[in-house]
C-alpha cells in the first residue's frame, strides 16, 4: 500500500540517489528541481491534450454521438493528430496587428497556467514546492492570465477580440473576489495557506473528514467551484469567447500553434481549478483504500467531468447577469459563509453547530434570492384560441 502510495516519490528519490553517485551535492538539488519541473512540464500539456479528447468524447456521448473515433483505438491518438495539424497550419497575423504583442500573448498565458501546477499536491509528498502561501500563490499567478488575454485581444486589432478582452477582464476581476473569499473558510479551518497543510487538515475519519461534509464547507465548495468555472471561461460563464456572439472573443485572430496555446492554457486551468477545488474542500489526496494520487485524480477528474457536463447542458449567461451573480449573490454569500465558519469553531455541540450554520446559510441565501428577484424566472400561462 505504502509502496503504491509513494511510488512516484520513491522513483524520484531513486533517480536522485543514482545521480548522487557521480554528481556534486549542489548539482543534485538542480537535478531534483529539474525532475519536478520536467514532470510538470510534461504533465500539463499531456493533460491538456487528453482533456480535449475527454471533452469531445463526453460531450459527444451526451449528444448521442460517438466523438473522435478514427485516429487510434477510441480516437485516443486524436490529440496528437490535432497537435500535428496545429503545428503545420499557417500562422496568420492580421495586417493591422501589433505583431510583438500578438506573438507574446499566447506565450504569456501559458506560463501562469503551468506555474500553478507547482503548488498542487498530487499525492502525499507529491507537491513540487510546498510554499507556505501556496494558495495565495495559486490565486496571484492565475490572476496574470488577465494580462495575457488583454494583450491578445488588444494586439489583434479586431473589434470582436476587443469586446472579448473587455468581457474577460470584467469577468475575471469580478470572479476573483468571491473566489478568494470562498477559499477563506478552508484556510480558517486548517489555519494555513499551504495547500499541503489544508489537505492534511482533512485527514481524519479514515481519510474522509473532508470540509465539504460540513455546511460551510459545502457552500464554500459550491461557491469556489462556480467561481472557478467562471475563472477558466467555461460554460455557462464562457462569455469572453462566446462563439455565437463575438465569434471567438479574444482569440478570434489566432491560428495554428498560437491558437493551440490559448487552448492549452484554458484546459490546464480547467484541470488546476478542479484540482484546487478538490484540495480545498474534497480532501485533496485524502481517502481510504486507494493510493493518495489515485484519490486526487479521481476527485479532480470528477470535477472536470462536471465542468464538461455543464458544457453539454447549459446555455450561457449574459454579461450583466453574470456580473450580477458575482457581486449580488456569490460575494455576500461567501462573506456570510466566512462568518458561519467562524461560528462553527466558536460553538460546541454538533446539534447547535449544524442548526446554527445551516439556519444562517439557508436564511441568508433565501434573502439573497429575494434581493435578486429580477433575475428569477417568471411563470407563464398560455392561452389557446379555438
Amino acid at each position, binding site marked *: 500500500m505504502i509502496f503504491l502510495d509513494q511510488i512516484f516519490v520513491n522513483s524520484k528519490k531513486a533517480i536522485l540517489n543514482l545521480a548522487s553517485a557521480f554528481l556534486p551535492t549542489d548539482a543534485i538539488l538542480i537535478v531534483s528541481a529539474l525532475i519536478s519541473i520536467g514532470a510538470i512540464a510534461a504533465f500539463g500539456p499531456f493533460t491538456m491534450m487528453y482533456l480535449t479528447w475527454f471533452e469531445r468524447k*463526453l460531450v459527444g*456521448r*451526451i*449528444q*448521442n*454521438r*460517438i466523438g473522435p473515433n478514427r485516429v487510434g483505438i477510441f480516437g485516443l491518438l486524436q490529440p496528437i493528430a490535432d497537435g500535428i495539424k496545429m503545428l503545420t497550419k499557417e500562422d496568420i497575423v492580421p495586417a493591422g496587428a501589433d505583431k510583438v504583442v500578438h506573438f507574446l500573448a499566447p506565450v504569456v498565458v501559458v506560463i501562469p497556467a503551468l506555474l500553478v501546477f507547482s503548488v498542487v499536491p498530487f499525492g502525499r509528498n507529491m507537491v513540487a514546492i510546498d510554499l507556505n502561501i501556496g494558495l495565495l500563490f495559486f490565486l496571484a499567478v492565475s490572476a496574470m492570465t488577465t494580462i495575457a488575454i488583454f494583450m491578445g485581444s488588444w494586439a489583434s486589432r479586431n473589434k470582436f477580440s476587443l469586446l472579448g478582452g473587455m468581457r474577460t477582464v470584467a469577468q475575471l476581476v469580478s470572479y476573483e473576489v468571491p473566489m478568494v473569499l470562498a477559499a477563506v473558510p478552508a484556510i480558517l479551518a486548517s489555519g494555513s495557506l499551504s495547500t499541503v497543510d489544508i489537505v492534511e487538515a482533512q485527514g481524519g475519519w479514515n481519510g474522509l473528514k473532508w470540509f465539504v461534509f460540513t455546511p460551510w464547507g459545502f457552500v464554500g465548495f459550491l461557491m469556489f467551484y462556480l467561481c472557478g468555472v467562471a475563472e477558466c471561461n467555461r460554460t455557462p460563464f464562457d462569455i469572453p469567447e462566446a462563439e455565437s456572439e463575438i465569434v471567438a472573443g479574444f482569440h478570434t485572430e489566432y491560428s495554428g500553434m498560437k491558437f493551440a496555446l490559448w487552448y492549452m492554457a484554458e484546459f490546464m486551468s480547467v484541470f488546476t481549478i478542479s484540482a484546487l477545488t478538490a484540495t480545498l474542500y474534497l480532501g485533496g489526496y485524502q481517502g481510504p483504500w486507494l493510493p493518495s494520487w489515485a484519490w486526487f485524480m479521481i476527485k479532480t477528474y470528477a470535477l472536470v467531468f462536471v465542468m464538461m*457536463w*455543464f458544457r*453539454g*447542458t*447549459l446555455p450561457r449567461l449574459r454579461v450583466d447577469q453574470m456580473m450580477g451573480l458575482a457581486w449580488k449573490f456569490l460575494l455576500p454569500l461567501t462573506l456570510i459563509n466566512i462568518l458561519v465558519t467562524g461560528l462553527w469553531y466558536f460553538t460546541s455541540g454538533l446539534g447547535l453547530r449544524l442548526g446554527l450554520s445551516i439556519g444562517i446559510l439557508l436564511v441568508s441565501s433565501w434573502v439573497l434570492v429575494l434581493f435578486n428577484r429580477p433575475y428569477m*424566472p417568471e411563470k407563464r400561462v398560455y392561452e389557446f384560441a379555438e
Partner: protein
Amino acid sequence: MFGVLRGMGITFKNFVASYFLPRKPNSLETGGMVTLQYPEERLPEKERFRNFPFLIYDTKPDDLRCVACDICAKECPPKCIYIVRDNDEQGRPLKKPKVFDIDFTVCMNCGICEEACPFDAIFMDHEFEVGGPERQQSLVYHMDQLLKPATHFAKIRPTDHVAIEEKRRKEAEKKRAAAQAQPKPPEAKPPQA
C-alpha cells in the same frame, strides 16, 4: 436551480444511454446513439431517392433509349442538359444523340427530366458520391459516363422497373399491332428496342 438540475439529469441520461442502448446497424432506429459510421455503414437506399440523372440503355451502349428529342433539356429548370442530335453519313438526323452532356455543378436533382421524358430514357440515379479534382470540367458528365444499363435501373428501383417494362411491352405490342394492321407503313421503324 431545479430547472438546471433537471436538464443536467436529462443530458446525463442520454450520456448513459449512449453506452447501453446501441443503435441497430444500418438503420435510424435509435436507442441511445445515433451516429452512423458512414463509409462502412449505410442506411438502406430508398427506392425513390434521386440524385443525378443517368441515361439508360437496354443491352449495349449503342442502342440507348434516348432519341435526342430535347424535351428534358427544355424542361430542365436550371438548363443543365445539352443535347446534339446525331446525323448519319448523308447528314440526315438520326434518332439518337451525338452529344449528351449534363453539368452536375448546375443540376439540382429535381427529377423533372425523368418526369418529362416520354421515352423512359433518363432516370435519376442513386449514385451520390460524385466528385472531381476541380470545379468545372470534371463535373460535366458526358454521354459515356452517363450511360448505364437497364439492369442497373432494375437494381436500384425494382418497382419502377417492373412498371416501366410492363408499359413499354404494351406500347411495343400496340405498335406492332398497328404495324400489322397497316399493310405498308411509310418508314415504319420499330422503336429502338
